[in-house]
C-alpha cells in the first residue's frame, strides 16, 4: 500500500507545528503547535503501521495520544499558574531567565 501522501501530509503538519513553535509567542498557541507535531508523528506511525501490516505503530500512536494529553495538561496547568500570577503570557517577555 502506498502511503506516500500520508507521509507528505504528516511531514507538512510536523513542519507547520515546528514553525509555529519557533515563531509564535503565545504559549497556548505553542502548546497547540506541539500537539500538531506529535499528531503528525502519530499520522505517520499509523500510516507505517498500515504499510507494514503490523499493529505496533497503532499501539504506539495510542500511547502517544496519552502522553500528549499529559503534556498538554501540565502545560495548561503551568500557563494558568503563570496567568494567575498576572505574568505576561508571551514567552518573549519571560525576561527572568535570559541567557
Amino acid at each position, binding site marked *: 500500500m502506498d502511503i506516500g501522501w500520508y507521509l507528505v501530509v504528516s511531514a507538512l503538519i510536523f513542519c507547520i507545528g515546528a514553525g509555529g513553535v519557533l515563531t509564535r509567542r503565545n504559549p497556548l498557541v505553542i502548546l497547540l503547535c506541539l500537539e500538531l507535531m506529535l499528531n503528525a508523528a502519530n499520522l505517520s506511525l499509523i500510516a507505517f503501521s498500515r504499510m507494514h501490516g503490523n499493529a505496533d505503530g497503532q*499501539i504506539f500512536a495510542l500511547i502517544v495520544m496519552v502522553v500528549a494529553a499529559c503534556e498538554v495538561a501540565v502545560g495548561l496547568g503551568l500557563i494558568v499558574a503563570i496567568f494567575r500570577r498576572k505574568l505576561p503570557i508571551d514567552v518573549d517577555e519571560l525576561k527572568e531567565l535570559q541567557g
Partner: protein
Amino acid sequence: MNVILPFAEVGFAEAWWIQILKAVIIFLVGFTMVPLALMLDRKLMGRMQMRYGPNRVGPFGALQPMADIGKLLFKQQFRPRTSVGFLFAVAPAISMVCAAGAFAVIPFGPVVDIWGADVGLYGIDVSIGILFVFAFSALSVYGLMLGGWASGSKYSFLGAMRSAAQLISYEVSMGLSLIGVVITAGTLSLTEIVEAQAGMWYIIPQFVGFIIFLLAAFAETNRPPFDLTEADAELVGGYSTEYGGGRFAAYYAAEYFHLVIASAIAVTMFFGGWMLPFGIDPPQWVDPIVVIVKTVLVVCFFIWARTTFPRPRYDQLMSLGWKILLPLATANALVTAIIVVVTH
C-alpha cells in the same frame, strides 16, 4: 508487541450507489425523528402538566414543529456587533454536522437481502462503532464553544464554558459506562453488540452501566434536568443567547438530534437493538420499526424525566458526574471484567 489488533475493516461493503441511497434514506428517517421528538416533547410535557400542548397546526398539533422551523427560517438575520461573523454563522452548522455524523453508525437491522442485494440496515458498520459515536459527540462541543465565544457576549460565553465543562465531565462517565457492555460483547461494532444480546438484553447484566449511561446522556444532550447550559435564570439562554432565526433552529434541531441519537445508542447497547424479547423472531422488515419504536420510547423516558425532576445546581451537577458516576462507572467496568474473565 506481537499482539495484532483487528484493523478497522469489515467483511463487505455495498456498491457505491446502494451506500449513498441507504445513507440518504436512513438520514431522512433519522432526521424525521427530530421533529417527532420535538412534538412529543411538547405534547407529552403538556399532558403531564395537565394541559394540551400545541394542538392547532395539523391533526393534534402534529405539524407544530414544522411550523416552528418554518417560522424560524423566515426571521430577520442579525447578530451582535461584538460577534465574530464567520464563526458565529458556522457554529450551529457544526453542531448539526456532528449530530448527523454520529447517526451514521446506528444500526436498524442486520444485513438483509433486498431484491437480491445484500444491504446492511445501518449507515456504516465499523469495528470501532461506539468510538465513532464518541468522536462525533465530542466534536459537538466545538459547535457550542464556538457559538458561545463567537457571540461576543458574556452570557453566551459563560454558557458555552459551562456546557463544555458539563459535556466533557460526563463524557468520561459515559465512556466508562459502556466499557461493561464492550467487555461482555467483546466487540465495538454496534451490530455485533446487538447480536450479542440475542440471549439477554444488556440492560439486565449491565443495569448499573445503563443507569450511568442514562444520566450521562441527560447531561450530554443538555436535556432537562441537566440543561444547566441554558439555565434561563442564571445564564439567560446559555450559548445560544444571541442566536435567532434559522441559526437558532439549527442548534435546536441538533439538540433534539442528539437526543434521538442518545436514545438510539441506549437501545442498541442495552435494549437489544432490533431484537425482540422472549425469543420472538419477526420477519426482517420489522427490525427497523422495532428500533424506531424502542428509540421513541426512550425519548419518551427523557421527556418524562424532564417533567419530573428539578434542575440541580451547577456544582451538584459536577459533583454527581465526578464524584459518583465516575467511580461507579469504573467499579462497574472492573466488576464486569472480573465476572467475565472468571466465568469465561
